[in-house]
């Protein structure tokens, strides 16, 4: 990797933290999708899950290799197996098997969109190596997004609608938290360095821009309203009391079984 300019230690640590979060989430999303390569309700979906899993796991390579090249002290090692590290940095709902197909569709739709938005923030940033790598990863995302939205629409129109609705309601608050609370010092450092293009709340609004219209259109109310006056999406209070800014997840809750 061509080093842009020697980063100051605090910025380097913040950048390493962001990269490991992206990589770990992609790793676990890939692992979870791979479990549906043999269990999805249709052969086409199963094959798609295998392909998506392969790509998500492949996406970890440029991220983990960038992390290694950063040489940030204490940076976590790349994951090749779930238990390679004591601590991982991903959404709690990606840490264990998805309990149902509607849950899998909701998780893919939300997590994949959130990851893409964060990568687009890097693609628009000023770190040339990261820009290039983010751009490469984003190139694969339209097919992922199309598949996820297709499954959301399909499930919303059949008897699985209540299960899908429940899964979205369960997973959305953590996904919105994932961008972090407003004014996080690490994100502020990365913004000052020009490596990320938006703050946490702007990224959260971008996620809602991407998902809310599609969910409304599919008849899936998620408690999000557009505020015409404020030109922003309004969402219910987020569970910051359960948020771990270190592991970038909310404390795992007992799951309500969904079918």
């Amino acid at each position: 990797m061509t080093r842009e300019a020697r980063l100051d230690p605090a910025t380097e640590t913040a950048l390493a933290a962001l990269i490991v979060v992206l990589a770990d989430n992609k790793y676990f999303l890939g692992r979870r999708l791979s479990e549906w390569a043999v269990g999805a309700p249709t052969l086409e979906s199963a094959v798609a899950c295998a392909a998506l899993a392969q790509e998500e796991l492949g996406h970890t390579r440029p991220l983990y290799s960038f992390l290694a090249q950063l040489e940030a002290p204490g940076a976590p090692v790349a994951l090749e197996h779930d238990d390679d590290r004591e601590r991982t940095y991903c959404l709690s709902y990606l840490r264990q098997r998805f309990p149902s197909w509607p849950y899998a569709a909701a998780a893919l739709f939300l997590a994949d969109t959130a990851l893409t938005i964060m990568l687009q923030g890097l693609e628009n940033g000023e770190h040339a190596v990261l820009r290039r790598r983010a751009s490469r990863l984003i190139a694969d995302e339209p097919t992922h997004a199309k598949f996820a939205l297709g499954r959301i629409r399909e499930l919303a129109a059949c008897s699985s609608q209540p299960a899908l609705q429940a899964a979205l309601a369960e997973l959305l608050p953590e996904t919105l938290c994932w961008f972090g609370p407003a004014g996080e010092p690490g994100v502020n450092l990365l913004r000052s360095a020009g490596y990320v293009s938006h703050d946490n709340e702007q990224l959260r609004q971008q996620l809602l821009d991407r998902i809310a219209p599609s969910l409304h259109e599919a008849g899936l109310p998620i408690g999000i309203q557009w505020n015409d006056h404020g030109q922003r999406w309004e969402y219910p209070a987020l569970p910051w009391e359960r948020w771990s800014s270190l592991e970038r997840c909310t404390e795992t809750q007992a799951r309500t079984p969904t079918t």
Partner: protein
Amino acid sequence: MSSRPTPESLREALAEISDPEYPISIVDLGLVRGVTVHESTATVQIAFCSLGCPCIELIVEDIEQRLLEVPGIDRVEVEEVFERWTRSDISPDGLKGLRQIGVA
């Protein structure tokens, strides 16, 4: 006396390597993004069609093996560049080959 290896001669050697999944050379598929030679070290910059391609290690091994057969090369470095790969990267010969096997 054999001539010293050049990027062009190394590229010709790379053109002999087929993708493990399709009988098309990795050069015609547009995977090879740069070739340099410094003294006896060849450096190949490569992009893959898919970041999750299961053949990555095979391709890297094939490149190393083939270039080490080139007189004057005793070290090969393969550097993945993580660039986008699209259909437009395939050469006319590559497209023709793919059409012949019913892919393109």
